[in-house]
C-alpha cells in the first residue's frame, strides 16, 4: 500500500469516524448473527444460540475498544473525552472559571498588547520585496543636515556628492538609494490644482529616482519614480502614498496624472505607491508624497542639496547575492574617505587629521532606518519585562486556584483511581482542563489586547497622522499569544495535576480526619510569597516612574504658557524668498495685532519645548579657546521673549531697531554666561562668534533666564538669541542660501483664552497668503504636555501593571487564606470550644496571612534594590533607590494583604463551635 493509501485510510477513520464506528458495529454484529445461525442449525434454541455465540466471541466492548485502538486515533478519542469532561467541570464552577479566565485574559492581554508594539517597532521588516538583502550604510541616527566633522569618523549621514560617487563605484549593489534624513522636520505644503481647498501642510520625502526600484515595489496605480525623474530640469513628478490617497482624496483616480502645487510649484502626481508601504522607516506620520531629490532646490529652496560640505542623506541599498559584507564595508569606508577628502571642510589641516578615522558600518536594512526603534527600544523592553511579571503573577494565581480545586476534587480523583484510571490519564485530564482554561483565557486576552493596543497607540502617538501600526493582532501576535497561552497552561497546570494524581486513593477515601492540618501546601504558600515579592517590584517600579514624571512635569520651565498659542508655519514652503521675509513678518505682526485680545505676537525659528534645535560652536572674543559643547541659537522678533514668557535679567531684549542694517546683537541665557565667561565678568558688551575668525560677530546686549528648549533633560543648555533678520558679519554666503531666516513658529499671547484661536489663525494667515498653511496649531500647554508623552505612557502603564499585580496578589492571598480557614473550620471550632476568644482566632488567621506577605517583602526588597539600577537611566533625577517610594509600596502591599487576610479571619472568628462540630 502506498503512503497515500495509508494516509487515506488513516484520515478516513478520522473524519468518517461515525461511519467507521457503525461499520465496525455491523461487522461484529454480523459475526455474532452468523455464529448464532450456525448454532441454531446445530439444534440449539434461538436464545441459547445467541448466548453461546456471545460466549465464543468474548467481551464485545473490549473487542470494540481494542479494534478502535488499531485505528491510531485513540489519543484523539481520549482528548475529546477529556475536553468534553473539562467543559462540564468548568461549567459546574462558574465562579472559579470566570476568575481564572479573567486573570489569564488580563495577563495575556497585557502581554499581547505590549508585544503588538514590540513587534511593530522593534521586530517588523519593511513591507517590501525581499527585505533581507537590504543593507543600510551607517549605524547611527545622525540627523538632519550637518556641515561639521564627526570626531569618531563613524558616518551615517552623507552628501549628494558622496552618493553620486558611491553609485558609480559600487557594482556590488543592485541598487543604492539615497533618502532625505530629516523629512519629519521639513513638511511640505500641498494644494490640488483648480480646487478651492486650502493648502495643507503634509509630510513629504525627497528620494533618489531608484528609491522604489531598490525596494522592489510595484505601483498601486500609475507609475513610480524613475532615474529620469531625478534629473535636473526634468518635469517634477511625485508619488503619493496609498494611505494618503485614500484618506485625503478618497481614492479619487483623477489624482493620478493631475497637477498639484507643492510649496507653490507645479508637480504632477505620477502614481500611487503600493498599499501598506510607509516609506523607508517607521514614523508616526509617514510621508504622503515622495519627490525626486533633484526637484528639492526648486521646491524647497534648500542650498545644501548640491553642497559637498552638507550631509543630509541616508543610504539604503540592495546588495547582489554572494557579496561579502565585511569586504564591502571596507571598500565603502575608503570610498567615503576619498569623497570627504575632496571637500572644503576636510581641506583644513585640523580636519585632515581626523580624516583617516572615516568609516561606515553596514547594518541590516530590512527594517529601514531605525530612528523610532532606538527611541522606543528601552521603554518597550521595560514594558515587556513588566507585563511578563504580571503574567507570572497571574499564572501563580491560577496555579493556586487549581491546587485548591485539586484538593477539593481529591475524593473524585481517588474514586477514579480506585476504579482503575491510570495516573497518566488523570494527569492528562487535568492538563486538558488547564489547556482549555488557557485557550479561553488567551482568546479573551486577545480581545483585551486589541482594545488595549488601540488605547496604547493613542496614548503613545497622539499627534500621528497615518500611523503605520495596526492595533489588530497580526499573525505574529496571534502566534505569540497562542504560545503564551500554551506556556502558561504548562506552567500553572503541571504541578497541580501531578500533585492531584499522586494522591493515594486509600488516604483520600479515609475522610473525616481531624487535626491541626496545615491547610495549605508548601507549594501554595511559595506561590503566594512569590506573588507578593513580584508585586512589590512592580509597585516600586510604578512609583519610581510616576515620581519621575511628576518631577519632569513640575520642573520650572522658566516660561509662561498661560493664554499662549503656538502656530507652526513654513514661509519657505509658501514660496517666500529670503528677501520677502522682512515684509511678511511685519504683515503677520500687524494682522495679528489687529485681532481683538492679542497681547504679543512673536516669531522665531522654533519655540521652547518642541523637538527642534539649531546648534553652533562658540568662541568668546578675547578669551582663550572656549571649551564646551557650543550653544543652541534661536532667531527671534522683538515681541518673542514676552510672548513665551522668558524673563530678562540684564541689559535689554531684541528691539525693532535691531535691523539687518545695524550691528548684529545677541541676548544669551544664564547657562551661557555661567559656562563661557569667568565668574564675575559682565557679559554685556562682550562679543562672540562660532570660531576664532567670527568671534566678533555678535555683541551681547542682554541676559535672559534659562527657558527650557527641546527637553527638560537637557541641563545647562547654552543658548543665545539673535534678531530674526540680522546676519553676522562673517557670513559671506548670499542671503539666498540662508535658511535660518525662515520663521517656524508664531507665538501668540492673548488677554484671555480664545476658543476659536485656531480658526482665527488659519484665516488670518490665509488672508495674507493662501499658501501660508498651518503646519501645526497647539496651545503652548499642549505643546509642553506632548514633550512628556513617552514618560507619561511609561508611568501610566507601569502604574496600571502595578495595580493589576497588586490586585492579583491580593486575590491570591485572599483565596489561600479563605481556603485555609475553610479547611481548618473544625480545628477552629475545637479551639473556640476549648476557650479561644474570637479576637485570638482573628489574630491567628491574620498572622498566617501577613507572615507570607512579610516573607514576600523580605525577598522583594533586595530584588527591588537590585532591579532599580536597570531603570535608573530611564528615570529623571532619581538616583539609586527612592526610599519614600519603597516605603509607600511596602505599606500599600501590607494594607492589601491585611485586607485579604482580614475577611477570612473575621469569618473564622464567627465560627460557631457547636455547629461546626455537629457538622461532622
Amino acid at each position, binding site marked *: *500500500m502506498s503512503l497515500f*493509501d*495509508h494516509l487515506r*485510510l*488513516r484520515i478516513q477513520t478520522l473524519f468518517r469516524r461515525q461511519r467507521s464506528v457503525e*461499520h*465496525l458495529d*455491523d*461487522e*461484529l454484529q*454480523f*459475526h455474532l*448473527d*452468523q*455464529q448464532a445461525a450456525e448454532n441454531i442449525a446445530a439444534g440449539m434454541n434461538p436464545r441459547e444460540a445467541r448466548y453461546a455465540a456471545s460466549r*465464543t*466471541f*468474548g*467481551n*464485545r466492548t*473490549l*473487542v470494540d475498544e*481494542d*479494534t478502535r*485502538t*488499531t*485505528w*491510531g486515533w485513540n489519543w484523539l478519542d481520549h482528548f475529546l473525552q477529556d475536553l468534553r469532561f473539562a467543559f462540564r467541570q468548568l461549567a459546574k464552577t462558574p465562579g472559579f472559571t470566570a476568575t481564572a479566565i479573567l486573570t489569564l485574559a488580563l495577563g495575556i492581554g497585557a502581554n499581547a498588547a505590549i508585544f503588538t508594539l514590540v513587534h511593530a517597532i522593534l521586530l517588523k521588516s519593511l513591507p517590501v520585496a525581499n527585505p533581507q538583502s537590504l543593507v543600510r550604510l551607517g549605524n547611527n541616527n545622525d540627523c538632519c543636515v550637518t556641515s561639521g566633522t564627526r570626531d569618531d569618523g563613524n558616518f551615517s549621514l552623507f552628501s549628494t556628492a558622496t552618493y553620486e560617487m558611491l553609485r558609480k563605484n559600487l557594482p556590488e549593489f543592485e541598487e543604492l538609494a539615497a533618502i532625505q534624513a530629516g523629512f519629519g522636520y521639513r513638511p511640505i505644503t500641498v494644494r490640488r490644482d483648480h480646487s478651492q481647498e486650502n493648502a495643507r501642510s503634509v509630510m513629504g520625502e525627497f528620494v533618489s529616482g531608484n528609491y522604489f526600484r531598490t525596494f522592489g515595489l510595484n505601483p498601486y496605480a500609475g507609475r513610480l519614480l524613475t532615474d529620469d525623474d531625478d534629473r535636473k530640469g526634468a518635469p517634477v513628478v511625485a508619488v503619493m502614498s496609498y494611505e494618503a490617497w485614500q484618506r485625503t482624496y478618497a481614492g479619487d483616480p483623477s489624482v493620478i496624472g493631475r497637477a498639484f502645487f507643492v510649496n507653490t510649484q507645479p508637480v504632477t502626481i505620477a502614481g500611487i505607491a503600493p498599499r501598506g508601504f510607509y516609506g523607508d522607516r517607521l514614523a508616526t506620520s509617514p510621508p504622503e508624497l515622495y519627490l525626486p531629490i533633484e526637484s528639492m532646490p526648486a521646491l524647497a529652496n534648500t542650498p545644501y542639496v548640491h553642497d559637498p560640505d552638507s550631509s543630509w542623506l541616508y543610504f539604503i541599498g540592495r546588495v547582489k547575492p554572494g557579496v561579502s559584507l565585511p569586504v564591502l564595508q571596507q571598500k565603502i569606508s575608503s570610498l567615503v574617505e576619498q569623497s570627504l577628502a575632496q571637500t572644503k571642510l576636510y581641506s583644513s589641516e585640523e580636519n585632515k587629521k581626523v580624516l583617516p578615522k572615516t568609516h561606515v558600518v553596514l547594518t541590516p536594512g530590512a527594517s529601514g532606518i531605525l530612528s523610532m526603534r532606538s527611541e522606543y527600544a528601552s521603554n518597550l523592553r521595560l514594558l515587556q519585562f513588566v507585563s511578563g511579571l504580571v503574567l507570572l503573577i497571574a499564572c501563580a494565581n491560577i496555579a493556586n486556584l487549581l491546587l485548591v480545586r485539586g484538593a477539593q476534587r481529591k475524593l473524585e480523583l481517588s474514586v477514579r483511581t480506585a476504579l482503575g484510571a491510570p495516573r497518566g490519564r488523570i494527569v492528562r485530564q487535568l492538563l486538558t482542563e488547564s489547556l482549555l482554561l488557557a485557550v479561553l483565557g488567551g482568546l479573551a486576552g486577545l480581545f483585551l489586547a486589541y482594545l488595549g493596543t488601540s488605547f496604547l497607540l493613542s496614548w503613545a502617538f497622539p499627534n500621528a497622522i497615518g500611523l503605520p501600526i495596526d492595533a489588530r493582532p497580526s499573525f505574529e501576535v496571534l502566534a505569540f499569544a497562542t504560545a503564551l497561552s500554551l506556556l502558561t497552561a504548562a506552567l500553572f497546570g503541571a504541578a497541580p495535576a501531578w500533585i492531584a494524581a499522586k494522591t493515594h486513593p486509600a488516604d483520600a477515601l479515609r475522610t473525616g480526619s481531624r487535626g491541626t492540618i496545615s491547610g495549605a501546601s508548601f507549594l501554595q504558600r511559595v506561590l503566594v510569597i512569590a506573588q507578593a515579592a513580584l508585586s512589590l517590584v512592580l509597585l516600586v517600579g510604578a512609583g519610581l516612574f510616576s515620581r519621575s514624571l511628576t518631577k519632569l512635569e513640575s520642573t520650572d520651565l522658566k516660561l509662561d504658557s498661560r493664554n499662549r498659542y503656538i502656530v507652526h508655519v513654513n514661509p519657505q514652503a509658501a514660496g517666500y524668498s529670503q528677501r520677502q521675509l522682512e515684509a511678511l513678518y511685519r504683515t503677520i505682526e500687524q494682522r495679528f495685532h489687529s485681532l481683538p485680545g492679542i497681547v504679543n505676537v512673536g516669531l522665531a525659528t522654533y519655540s521652547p519645548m518642541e523637538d527642534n534645535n539649531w546648534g553652533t560652536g562658540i568662541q568668546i572674543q578675547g578669551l582663550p579657546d572656549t571649551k564646551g559643547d557650543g550653544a543652541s541659537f534661536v532667531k527671534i522678533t522683538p515681541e518673542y521673549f514676552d510672548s513665551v514668557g522668558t524673563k530678562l535679567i540684564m541689559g535689554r531684549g531684541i528691539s525693532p531697531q535691531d535691523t539687518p542694517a545695524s550691528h548684529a546683537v545677541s541676548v544669551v541665557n544664564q547657562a551661557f554666561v555661567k559656562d563661557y565667561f569667568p565668574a564675575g565678568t559682565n557679559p554685556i558688551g562682550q562679543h562672540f562668534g562660532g570660531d576664532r575668525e567670527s568671534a566678533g560677530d555678535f555683541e551681547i546686549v542682554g541676559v535672559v533666564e534659562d527657558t527650557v528648549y527641546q527637553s527638560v533633560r537637557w541641563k545647562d543648555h547654552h543658548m543665545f538669541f539673535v534678531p530674526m533678520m540680522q546676519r553676522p558679519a562673517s557670513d559671506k554666503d548670499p542671503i539666498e542660501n540662508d535658511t535660518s531666516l525662515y520663521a517656524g513658529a508664531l507665538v501668540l499671547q492673548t488677554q484671555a483664552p480664545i476658543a476659536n484661536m485656531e480658526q482665527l489663525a488659519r484665516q488670518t494667515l490665509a488672508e495674507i497668503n493662501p499658501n501660508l498653511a498651518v503646519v501645526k496649531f497647539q496651545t503652548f500647554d499642549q505643546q509642553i504636555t506632548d514633550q512628556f508623552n513617552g514618560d507619561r505612557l511609561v508611568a501610566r502603564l507601569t502604574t496600571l501593571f502595578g495595580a493589576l499585580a497588586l490586585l492579583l496578589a491580593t486575590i491570591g492571598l485572599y483565596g489561600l487564606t479563605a481556603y485555609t480557614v475553610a479547611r481548618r473550620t473544625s480545628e477552629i471550632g475545637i479551639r473556640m470550644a476549648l476557650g479561644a476568644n474570637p479576637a485570638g482566632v482573628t489574630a491567628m488567621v491574620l498572622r498566617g496571612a501577613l507572615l507570607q506577605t512579610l516573607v514576600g517583602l523580605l525577598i522583594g526588597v533586595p530584588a527591588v534594590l537590585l532591579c532599580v539600577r536597570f531603570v535608573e537611566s530611564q528615570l529623571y533625577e532619581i538616583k539609586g533607590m527612592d526610599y519614600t517610594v519603597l516605603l509607600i509600596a511596602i505599606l500599600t502591599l501590607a494594607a492589601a494583604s491585611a485586607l485579604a487576610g482580614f475577611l477570612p479571619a473575621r469569618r473564622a472568628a464567627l465560627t460557631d463551635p457547636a455547629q461546626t462540630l455537629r457538622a461532622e
Partner: protein
Amino acid sequence: MGKPSDLVQGTLDLLILKTIALEPKHGWAIAKRIEQISSDVLQVQQGSLYPALHRLEQKGWIKGKRAETETGRIAKFYCLTPAGRLQLEKESANWNRLSAAINLVVQAQSS
C-alpha cells in the same frame, strides 16, 4: 480456550493472511476456516480476531471491502493486498524455519 497471546507471537497474523490468500472472506468465515483446517486444535477466541484484522488493514497488508453475502447481508470481506502477499511469504518462511528448529530440538530430546 486459548487467547491470542497463547498462540505463538505473530502466528495469528500468519493464520489470517494464509486463510484469505485464496479468496476474500469475512471475519466469521476466517475464524471458522482456521478452526476447521486445524481440526479444532487451534481455537481462536473469535472476538480477538477483529483487532488483528484492523491492525493488518492499517498496515496495508489486507484490504476490507463491504459486500453482500450469499444470504443477502452486508459483511466486510478481507482480501490480501500485494504487500500482504509478500508479508505472507516472509512469515511462512519464518514459520517454517522456526517450526523446523523446534522440531529438531524436541526430537533430539526424545531420542
